[in-house]
């Protein structure tokens, strides 16, 4: 485990060393989250690199990554901990066989640590394990009751198991929560976190991201790709392409041995950028050709 970065600039350098190009807002928020020991709540459109931050932090800080993917109906036994019931029943039988039926000792025996099976949340704050980066991914997919489970963890980095007691992290984990905003996450969660809206990057940053994430793509093509995608985000589409789509597209074009964008190539590969048939139908042909003309014009200027 490495020490935490001392300034915003160091944080930004740490992220970019591992291929994540953050803007000033995001680097500041990440630095504060690390320095103040508070969870970081990232909200933004899909494909803007929210999940990636946790992965990069885990690599950059040399901590293990504990990931909890949220889904509807996620409950304590899948997210935090579960008792090993089969072993507990066995322990009760063994106690009976050996003739000890003292209630008090039996209770403390079968609710021992060895019967507690940790799930991601408990594992992230387990004092016996090395410090972690905890990623709670797509919290908006879980239902509201689940958010309540998180409150104790986010405020005090501890989990209380009624039968066992309170388990507290010896080194607080770095917590990153992401949401695609398919529903509003409750204010109680927001209040315990630092909030950061992750936006689409501007041209310069997206070029830097592409250089870091798709290094094999020729410079001229990658400049065109970024220019085209930046213009595409100005169109009235149902779902705008994210950074992840830009990277995919650049890699797809490279796989096709493209040197520069042509109308035919754009039409054939639109499916990598746009994921809704309405959007593709709207853009294919004339609109795509117009955007491409604007792109080459901007490149020439």
């Amino acid at each position: 485990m490495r020490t935490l970065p001392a300034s915003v600039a160091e944080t930004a350098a740490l992220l970019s060393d591992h291929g994540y190009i953050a803007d000033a807002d995001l680097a500041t928020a990440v630095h504060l989250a690390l320095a103040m020991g508070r969870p970081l709540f990232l909200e933004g459109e899909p494909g803007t690199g929210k999940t990636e931050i946790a992965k990069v932090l885990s690599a950059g800080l040399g901590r293990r990554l504990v990931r909890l993917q949220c889904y509807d109906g996620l409950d304590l036994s899948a997210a935090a901990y579960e008792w090993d019931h089969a072993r507990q029943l066995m322990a009760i039988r063994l106690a009976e066989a050996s003739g000890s039926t003292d209630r008090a000792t039996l209770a403390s025996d079968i609710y021992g640590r060895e019967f507690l099976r940790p799930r991601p949340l408990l594992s992230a704050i387990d004092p016996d394990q090395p410090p972690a980066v905890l990623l709670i991914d797509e919290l908006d997919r879980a239902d509201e009751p689940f958010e309540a489970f998180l409150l104790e963890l986010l405020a005090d980095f501890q989990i209380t198991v009624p039968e066992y007691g309170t388990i507290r992290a010896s080194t607080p984990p770095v917590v990153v929560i992401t949401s695609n905003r398919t529903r509003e996450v409750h204010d109680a969660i927001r209040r315990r976190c630092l909030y950061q809206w992750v936006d689409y990057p501007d041209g310069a940053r997206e070029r830097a991201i592409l250089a870091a994430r798709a290094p094999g793509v020729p410079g001229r093509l990658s400049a065109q790709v970024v220019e085209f995608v930046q213009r595409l985000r100005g169109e009235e589409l149902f779902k705008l392409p994210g950074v992840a789509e830009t990277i995919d597209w650049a890699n797809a074009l490279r796989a096709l041995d493209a040197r520069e964008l042509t109308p035919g190539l754009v039409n054939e590969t639109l499916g990598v950028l746009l994921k809704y048939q309405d959007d593709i139908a709207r853009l294919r042909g004339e609109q795509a050709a117009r955007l491409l003309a604007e792109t080459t014009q901007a490149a020439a200027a």
Partner: protein
Amino acid sequence: MSEAPGALAANVMQFARMLRRAGLPVGPTETIAGQDALTVIDLGQREEMRSALRAVMTHRHEHREVFDHAFALFWRDPAAAQQEAVMALMDGQKQAADRRPPPASRRVAEAMAPARPARPQDRETPPPPDLDMTLTVSERERLSQLDFEAMAAADIARAKSEIRALRLPLDMRRTRRRRPDETGPFTDLRATIRGSLRQGGEVLRISRSERTERPPPLVVLCDISGSMARYAQVLLHFLHAVANDRERVHVFLFGTRLTNITRALKHRDPEVAFQMVAHLVPDWSGGTRIGEALETFNRRWARRVLAQGAVVLLVTDGLDREGARGLAENMDRLHRSCARLIWLNPLLRWDGFEPKSQGVRAMLPHVDEFRPVHNLASLRSLIAALSRPAPPRGGADPWRMAA
């Protein structure tokens, strides 16, 4: 920075005061977090300071603009917070600010004043038409058949109180969450073992559990153009009752623009809620651009409110000012993004109603159900329909459901 830490802390406090004035929910927690944040960053960097304060003092994307504005004003000249003029500027940022006397005081005044005779315009409203009063129907039954548009003021008042008593039991969806239930199909081993300890480890009783159920989210899109104004007013009472009765209800009004009134409608007091709604909505009783409103909804809100099997109620007469431009595509997209789309149309009260207008023809193929909503009886039958499971999609003719 030359300032002593003490002065900086005081400035953050002043700044928090300014944000509160601008309507942002900034409490002592945020103020302290702001002061803490400034100790771990480079104060020489203005941008960094803004990002830091924004990350700790705001919790929503919507508040970003107001924050940035306040930041620019305050940190140019921290003394500004002491100036009344700048603070007054902040008031302009407030969204649903209300300088009129609160409705509660009006109601108190009304309660104290002696009853006045009805105002002239109340008497001018036409008497309820097509109603055979020789029938010995109860007053209540008469009320339930009466068209909202034809109601006199007194009838409306009574209809409203009836509406407020209506409950909307949407058909329940099973969740993956469980609750203890002695007759349930699942064994709850954790509770069983805990219970067995009371018998010295002997399992005498097996605890069981059942899946919990809960209603799906409800999204209402209500037309408030001129032709719908009367219905919309009555329906708002229904929507207010529904929004306060249950969770996960989102209400949008549209005429020429789409407005989300969910937060305003959640206010328990209907008078306060309606006043806030009136303040939010710029296009009451204007024209309609249904296609455009739906497009805005699809782009801005659909992904945020239609998750987890939402039921959508679309309340409109389908008379579109823009000649149904873009209507079919956007209805289709809406239909495919939700679990159940129900169109409530007050024009359906006429038996001879035929889908002649372009708007209606464009919308009809894309709805799951098509129902009238013009009197209390139709509202009750809507509630009955919503509490039944949705019929399977595909092949069902919306017209048949309307009958």
